[in-house]
């Protein structure tokens, strides 16, 4: 039952990722991106990491993707639809793709025997991971957490300043 779910989610993720890239209509692309993110959230849930599952949904799908869809709709992009998307840069991009694939394959090949996942912990046995995530963030990794939040704050203020109408 468990592995069945896993295969379902992963196939869904890969399929919608491919669909997303190949879509002509921007909004369809966004919708498929959302399905990919939801599929990965499903995989988190499958690994008994409910907090990550929920955070993934709230953060990515509920937050960032909403802004994506906002931008897509505010700046009506029908204009860009008619441009030919696959431009002359085809040759260069294929080379880059091959190089990247080579790297990835080499990395997997070298570490192939240390890839096995740890034994899947019994469901109820682990401490509930909300507390564990909370402890990790606020106790052990306090400093990086604060730095990250300040970084985000700076980014937000930057965005606000830039978006302010030059009035």
């Amino acid at each position, binding site marked *: *039952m468990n592995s069945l779910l896993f295969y379902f989610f992963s196939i869904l993720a890969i399929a919608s990722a491919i669909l997303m890239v190949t879509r002509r209509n921007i909004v369809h692309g966004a*919708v498929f991106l959302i399905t990919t993110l939801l599929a990965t959230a499903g995989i988190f849930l499958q690994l008994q990491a409910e907090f990550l599952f*929920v955070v993934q949904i709230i953060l990515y*799908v509920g937050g960032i993707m*909403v802004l994506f869809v*906002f931008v897509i*709709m505010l700046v009506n992009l029908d204009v860009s639809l008619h441009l030919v998307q696959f431009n002359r840069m085809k040759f260069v991009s294929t080379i880059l793709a091959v190089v990247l694939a080579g790297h990835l394959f080499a990395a997997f090949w070298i570490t192939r025997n240390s890839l096995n996942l740890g034994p899947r912990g019994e469901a109820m046995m682990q401490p509930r991971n*909300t507390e564990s995530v909370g402890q990790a963030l606020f106790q052990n990794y306090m400093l990086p957490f604060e730095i990250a939040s300040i970084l985000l704050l700076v980014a937000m203020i930057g965005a606000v300043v830039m978006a302010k109408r030059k009035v």
Partner: protein
Amino acid sequence: MNHVIPPSIQAYVLPVLYGVVVVALLPLLAGYIVLLERKVMADMQARLGPMRVGPHGLLQPIADALKLLIKEDIVPEKADRFLFWCAPVLSVTMALLAYAAIPFGPVFQIADLNVGLLFILAISSLGIYGIVLGGWASNSHYSLLGALRSAAQLVSYETAAGLALVSGLMLAGSLSMKDIVQAQYDQGVWFVFVVPVGFFIYLVGSIAETNRAPFDLPEAESELVAGYMTEYSGFRWALYFLGEYANMVVVAAIATTLFLGGWLRPFARYQDHLFGTSIELLDLLPTILFLAAAAYCFWLAPRQPVQIQKIVMALVGGLCLVLAAGMTGALFAPDAVRLGIHGAFWFLAKVFAYIYAFLWIRFTFPRYRFDQLMRLGWRFLIPLALVNVIVVGTTIVLQQNWEWRHPMLSAIVTTAIMLGVAAFLAREGSAPSEPAEVGEGN
């Protein structure tokens, strides 16, 4: 029954069963909430409301549903057919999905996730897509404008509502809905009395989140006509409508669980027994309520003008009697059944009380303008919610570290501080001026 189903599936039987019950009952529940809304609205406006279909309009929701089923289903040309179809479906599924974690009673809960509350928040935040994609797919400038406005409203008020929940969570200490209610039982007080400001912020946030007056701007803006729902008709529009009312019940359920003590009977820990039997006095309340309703129905039945209405009114009276009997019967049943039924009753009673507050607010307040709405959200509610979280957090820490014995005093202190902050934030609000001064003519 356990030995019949293989153990691996057995964990799924009960949730699926509850799921089916919820999905089946929800449209009916949403329909009757619509009827309740129209009746309450009529009552507040010195009129009668729907009276034609069935006695006192009791069959009105069924008539509405039938009408919507039969109505022609128009798809605007050049609309994005796929998105146009899946937007309302998305909106309804998100609303239904959120029921997975809602505890209708100690027994009747589809799945007790240990991130229950967060799960519901996440799912309801997905509801925005139903609206935004619907607005985009109807390919009309105005439904897009309406969709973007309602999405902006949802996003900004979700943060405020979320932060308000955080203040309640800190008291409960756990995300699982069952534990929250249990915490309120252990602490012997509903959280609404400990963090009233949090409850208020959540009330306002939830009204805005379900796009209801006085925040129902996107549909009611006079030049946006019906916002993102303009191009929808027939059953698709009914789906949106069902989504909205289901969301309303979800939001009411969260508030009930977190602030109003879920399925706890008022004064849950006050055990006094009715002359020596094992029945607690307060447990009789539901029975008395249903008996009163039955009496009222029977008193009304002969007064109905039409014969058929007399019968149906009598039937409704009978139904109330059955429920009253069920309630009393449950008193003598084993604990699990008693708790389950009474818990469900109290939970639904509180949910309906919360929804009644929604309706009440809708008919007394005019609509906010969009910029006022945004200003209220960002400049008043979110800072207030943030400060609320901080203040409640510090009082809890003080309470634990300094063995502060009387929680009620700390609750009053926190509320006082919060009201001070709220007054400060709302200071530039316009004070209403005195009535027209009259003077002698020239």
